[in-house]
């Protein structure tokens, strides 16, 4: 699976998240399909390409959000490594694990950001809010299954092997039978 389709997809999602979604009413303004994409990449893409993609998304996120450059690439890379490490003993790609995995990944990421920023600027303590976090968890849980299906579909569609199979697919029936 090449990285380009994911790069285009992730970039589009980030643009939507920063421009369109904030105008949505209530909790829907906090939809985060890009984070689900990062978890999806961590599960389904090999570690090298996964690292390239997560670093790219981290850098892109740094541009549009936050104030510390390099924070998001580190956090997303750490998340990738943790998920890769966990996916060996556990079957994380199975669908029942998707929602708990995404939610726990978000909690991990939040803790990581909180710890790093507290270390970088101890005088500016971040506001840790469980209610706000739970709303995020809920919204992530709501979209995870649909997002995973869509990303799987995209991955299969843009996979060169599948594309080649479609092109060289033999016609049905025995054309030489008399």
């Amino acid at each position, binding site marked *: 699976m090449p990285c380009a389709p994911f790069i285009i997809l992730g970039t589009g999602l980030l643009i939507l*998240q*920063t*421009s369109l*979604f*904030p105008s949505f009413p209530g909790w829907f303004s*906090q939809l*985060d399909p890009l984070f689900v994409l990062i978890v999806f990449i961590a599960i389904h893409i090999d570690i090298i390409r996964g690292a390239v993609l997560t670093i790219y998304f981290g850098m892109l*996120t740094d*541009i*549009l*959000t*936050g*104030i510390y450059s390099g924070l998001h690439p580190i956090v997303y890379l750490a998340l990738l490594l943790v998920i890769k490490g966990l996916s060996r003993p556990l079957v994380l790609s199975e669908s029942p694990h998707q929602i708990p995995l995404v939610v726990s990944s978000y909690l991990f990421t*939040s803790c990581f*950001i*909180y710890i790093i*920023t507290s270390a970088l*600027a101890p005088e*500016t*303590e*971040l*506001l840790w*809010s469980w209610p*706000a*976090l739970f709303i*995020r968890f809920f919204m992530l849980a709501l979209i995870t299954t649909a997002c995973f299906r869509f990303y799987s579909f995209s991955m299969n569609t843009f996979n060169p092997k599948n594309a080649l199979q479609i092109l060289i697919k033999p016609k049905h029936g025995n054309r030489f039978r008399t």
Partner: protein
Amino acid sequence: MLGIIITVLLMIIVATVGRSHFNAPQKFGLDVVGKGQYVVTRIMGGVTNIWSSYIALWGVRHENKLLRTELDKSILSNQEYREAMAENIRLHKLLGFKDSLKVPTITTQIIGRDPSLWFHTLTIDRGTSDGIEKGMPVVTVEGVVGQILETSRTTSKVLLAHDQNSAVNALIQKNRVQGIMKGRGSQDYRLQYILKNADVASGDIIVTSGLGGSFPKGIPIGTVSKVTKSKRGMFQNIEARPTVNFSQLEYLIVILKQNSLVD
């Protein structure tokens, strides 16, 4: 036989001519024919009614469709009119405020918002090509919004004043006591370094002090909402509400400077 029939018919005709009332055979014939007419009339009436109703329904449906389209158009144009009115009022205020500032300014529109849970930034549609530089103050009619954090050629990132990483030199308007207005990450501020002997009460207005050269003096930042004095320490704990509603921002003013504020 034919002669007998013709004779009977002639007798009946002669007998009925000049009578004012129907005789029995006439009544019977009328009954029978009348019943038939009634049935046919009812059927025809029913068919006509159904047909006319169907045709009318068709017309009503068509008319309803047209009226709905007209209504939608009217609602849309009404919304556009209201939106244009609201925007006009907003821009009018903004223009008035812009003219009142003695420093050069530039009006910008918000094109993106920070989706993160932890930071509070915005993206605006002006960049270095418009003269915007890092550190420039961003305000609106209501008061201080934040300052420029990063710039590109056509866009800039604004750090909002209520972010934890933001700090603005401020003073209490009524007694000119100076402090630093820090963001808390939530929708309010904390005014720091105000001595315990200073007279501060809920409702006091806080404005920029002009110190540091970043913000012009006298721009509203917030209103004191809570004052507490702990036993320890030299300073009061002062919480303040922003004058700006950060969730309803659309257009902003960037105050340009001749020299860069941050190198």
